């Protein structure tokens, strides 16, 4: 080899001074050996490590798959199925009065006639409801609404809880004391009562122009979000405060202070990334609880407004004909179960993968 010069010793390095040796005393590492070094020193980050563990957990992977399938269905199905969730079925512009409470994959008389004449009707996968609407599309839209509510409510909860909890935990002392007493007060409010009261009050206050997105969501839905924003963040705030209290004790926070880093930067750069795993896990567990609350409220008639479906209101509507059409309760109930169960299992999987205290 041309360059058999020994590498120069860094004056501060603890390495052996190689200039004392001759180059022929050494043997060049083969490519094989070099590769071994590479493999050994592969850098793993906390995130990569957690992901690897998560994908080893069959329950977590299963729930990811189920959630993925549900997500694809609710995005793709409305594009394929030619019916709309509030559309009353009609054949050739004539209202199909016979298409009431059809069983899955059956056609009404009018539709059957139409098909026999060489026309094409998309099958009613879940049948139809008592107002002659395609039930599959309604369940798909209901799942959409439920998932959207779950996500947005969790994001509201996460945002408020994170802001409040991190300030309270970081500042500590009297500020913490007062902020946490406020949390205690909010914690003791009966949430269902507040939701019912708010949806009544907001109905008169909020006057959306008809046709807008907010109006189609309905005041009940808005009040549901407001209630999540007002009440449900306290659990998250407490959790994050507790995390921050323990992270604050670490010397690297003191080191950041001694550098002169401002409080906001310390929270953003050091504290929040270090309680990120807890935040992810509790958000993943917050989503099913929000979906559940929404379904429950829709079931008792305080959720989304008709004709917009939600899983809870579909289940409620199916209650009436339970004796004759049990499958109509089964579909939305099954969807709720699958979503809530998958999110809970995923949350558990995330906790096992990311919580450093559970490391084996």
């Amino acid at each position, binding site marked *: 080899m041309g360059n058999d010069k020994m590498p120069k010793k860094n004056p501060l390095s603890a390495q052996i001074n190689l200039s004392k040796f001759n180059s022929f005393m050494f043997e060049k590492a083969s490519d094989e050996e070099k590769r071994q070094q590479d493999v050994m020193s592969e850098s793993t*980050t906390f995130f990569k490590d957690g992901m690897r563990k998560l994908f080893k957990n069959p329950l977590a992977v299963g729930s990811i798959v189920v959630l993925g399938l549900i997500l694809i269905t609710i995005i793709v199905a409305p594009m394929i199925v030619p019916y709309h969730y509030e559309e009353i079925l009609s054949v050739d512009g004539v209202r199909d009065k016979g298409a009431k409470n059809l069983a899955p994959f059956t056609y009404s008389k009018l539709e059957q006639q139409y098909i026999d004449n060489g026309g094409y009707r998309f099958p009613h996968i879940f049948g139809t409801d008592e107002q002659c609407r395609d039930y599959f599309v309604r369940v798909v839209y209901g799942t959409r609404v439920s998932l959207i509510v779950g996500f947005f409510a969790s994001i509201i909860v996460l945002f408020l809880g994170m802001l409040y909890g991190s300030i309270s935990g970081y500042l500590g002392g009297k500020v913490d004391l007062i902020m946490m007493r406020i949390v205690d007060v909010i914690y003791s409010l009966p949430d269902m009562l507040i939701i019912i009261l708010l949806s009544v009050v907001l109905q008169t206050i909020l006057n959306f122009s008809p046709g807008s997105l907010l109006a189609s969501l309905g005041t009940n839905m808005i009040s549901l979000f407001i209630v999540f924003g007002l009440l449900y963040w306290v659990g998250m705030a407490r959790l994050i405060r507790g995390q921050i209290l323990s992270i604050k004790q670490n010397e690297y926070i003191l080191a950041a202070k*001694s550098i002169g880093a401002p409080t906001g930067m310390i929270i953003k750069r050091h504290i929040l990334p270090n309680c990120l795993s807890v935040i992810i896990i509790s958000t993943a567990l917050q989503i099913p609880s929000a979906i559940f609350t929404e379904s429950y409220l829709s079931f008792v008639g305080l959720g989304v407004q008709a004709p917009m479906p939600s899983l809870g209101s579909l289940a409620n509507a199916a209650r009436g004909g339970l004796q004759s059409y049990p499958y109509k309760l089964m579909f939305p109930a099954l969807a709720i179960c699958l979503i809530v169960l998958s999110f809970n299992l995923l949350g558990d999987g995330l906790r096992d993968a990311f919580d450093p205290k559970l490391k084996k």
Partner: protein
Amino acid sequence: MSKTPLVEVKNLKQYFPIKTGLFKTEMLKAVDDVSFYINEGETLGLVGESGCGKTTVGRTLLHLYEPTAGEILYEGTPVTEKNIFSMRKKMQMVFQDPYSSLDPRMTVEDIIGEPLDVHKLYSSRGERREKILHLMELVGLNAEHATRYAHEFSGGQRQRIGIARALAVDPKFIVCDEPVSALDVSIQAQVINMFEELQEKLGVAYLFIAHDLLVVHHISKRIAVMYMGKIVETGTADDVNYNSIHPYTCSLMSAVPIPDPDYIRGRKRIVLEGDVPSPLHMPSGCPFRTRCNHACEKCAEAMPPLTDRGNGHMVACWVK
């Protein structure tokens, strides 16, 4: 002493309120009336047993705690809450525990770059990276370590990262808070040699806090010995080590392990009786009198002042 010292501490007091009852708070006197100075490019060793207030002195110096009383002067200017941000460019700190003093979610590059970010010491990303690589080279780390996370390093390497972070703002003075006590002996030697080389190269001054007397003697020009928040003896490293006067220093020195069996056999160890008194209930007068072999009545009456015993060797003792 005509020149103003780089850092001067005058009558520094740091009390912490401790809740002892429902409505009762007592003051824990962690640091009580401590004065010392450090010249440019010089090392002052600060020794004492656990809980005597060494670390508190170091942290108060950087205003990580608001001092209860007393003054900290940097080149004659008092360090206050107002100018502390600019002072942090001149005074930095290396922490004791290399495992908890580095953020586990940050790469080495970001850890070392953080002081640069805070004080906006670069104009472009390229300059930032260049500075970081230079610092890493200075403390003997490879450039390819930059994208690694702190947990991938050994204790000694982690401490080097901590040192590089402290050096990032190009300080004149670094508080080293027991920087080697968490390391293996062999690594300790490397890190201490690095501290010395950095001092030669960059002319930084250190306040070197440790409880290992040999380490402190090796690195320091002068040594101050603390006992229960007070400095009981200070002087040149050799004076404090070989001609120690204060009974507490004498007993400390007699406990230093020396790898020479013949010498150890002939040495008389001064074993202290009893425990360190609670800092909440300090004994009257000299805090050391409860464990001192030479204690007399005068010791209970008042705290002895530091008096010069020649060559700047100051001792706070009535008897000796």
